[in-house]
């Protein structure tokens, strides 16, 4: 792509050089009709090379977006009833948020239902252990022994059932982690699209730069937006920066240096 467009621009530059020589000759020899025609040809050629390039980029962008929509992720995602509507990157990323949120909630549901089961087992076992100690020390009355005998039976049955519940909850938690695979694939696709679009935009900027240099347009430099701490940055991805603290300990150290 860049080869053909670059050559177009070299062509245009060459045409302009040739045109300038012809134009000078035409003006000097008084052939103004020819001079006007040369100017027109140059102008046309300038437009043509620019529009060719824009057309090329538009096509490439269109292709990239279409490829993205028809990608295999759609097939994976369309297992879900409503997910076939997911056709663009924003929806895909929203889908990632939904998937991760769903997984987190299911996992927490399972934990919420497991905690009381574990708590129940713990308190039952503690109670039994007290009496069991007394049994070992031969400190139980026959009546207490009969009660312990029954409670032990109940406890063993409960333990079996509780372990089955916990086992099934743990399995659900395990299965729920499958979101990582699916969201990973979606994010990889979106990343590819962004990289692709970036490449093409960089190319467009390079083309625009050449147009500017050819047409003599100058731009005022815009001030870059000030990076606002107040709005927040989200999690620090690049933790190499000395400005970013990497652990709670570092945060605590900084705060204590401030008198906290």
């Amino acid at each position, binding site marked *: 792509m860049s080869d053909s467009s670059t050559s177009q621009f070299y062509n245009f530059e060459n045409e302009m050089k040739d045109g300038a020589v012809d134009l000078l000759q035409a003006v000097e020899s008084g052939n103004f009709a020819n001079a006007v025609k040369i100017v027109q040809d140059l102008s046309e050629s300038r437009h043509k090379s620019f529009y060719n390039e824009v057309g090329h980029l538009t096509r490439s962008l269109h292709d990239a977006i279409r490829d993205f929509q028809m990608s295999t992720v759609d097939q994976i995602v369309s297992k879900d009833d409503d997910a076939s509507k997911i056709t663009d990157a924003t929806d895909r990323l929203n889908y990632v948020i939904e998937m991760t949120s769903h997984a987190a909630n299911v996992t927490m549901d399972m934990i919420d239902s497991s905690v009381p089961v574990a708590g129940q087992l713990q308190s039952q076992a503690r109670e039994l252990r007290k009496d069991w100690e007394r049994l070992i020390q031969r400190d139980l009355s026959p009546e207490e022994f009969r009660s312990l005998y029954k409670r032990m039976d109940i406890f063993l049955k409960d333990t079996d059932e509780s372990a089955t519940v916990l086992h099934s909850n743990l399995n659900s938690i395990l299965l729920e982690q499958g979101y990582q695979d699916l969201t990973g694939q979606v994010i990889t696709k979106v990343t590819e699209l962004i990289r692709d679009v970036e490449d093409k935009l960089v190319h467009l900027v390079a083309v625009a730069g050449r147009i500017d240099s050819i047409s003599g347009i100058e731009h005022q430099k815009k001030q870059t937006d000030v990076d606002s*701490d*107040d709005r*927040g*940055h989200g*999690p620090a991805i690049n933790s190499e920066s000395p*400005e*970013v*603290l990497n652990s*709670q300990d570092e945060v605590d150290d*900084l705060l204590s240096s401030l008198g906290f």
Partner: protein
Amino acid sequence: MDKNMKILIVDDFSTMRRIIKNLLRDLGFTNTVEADDGTTALPILQAGSIDFLVTDWNMPGMTGIELLRVVRADEKLKSIPILMVTAEAKRDQIIAAAQAGVNGYVVKPFTAVALKEKIEKIFERIDAGN
């Protein structure tokens, strides 16, 4: 430290609110309310009866740092202890939060132990001050 104190949890992600709520419950704090950013948190705070505020930083609408400043500037609210639980970990931000009057700062991802320690420390200081 009163285990029945009313705690407002402010975070835009319901998952994170739930995690914090569960951790607080494990620590014995069961009286919690939730809001999803500073804008929805303020009316709850102004209605009174909130004893402790746990807030994220990065939220749509009003951010946590803005909420912190608004609370500290409000005569009725300014003494509410505030714990920030956030992924924001830039040195300047932590300094800004300290200057705005935060009582504790926990960076995500965090542990149950870290949350517990910070809460205990905040109330130890408050009890010592009284």
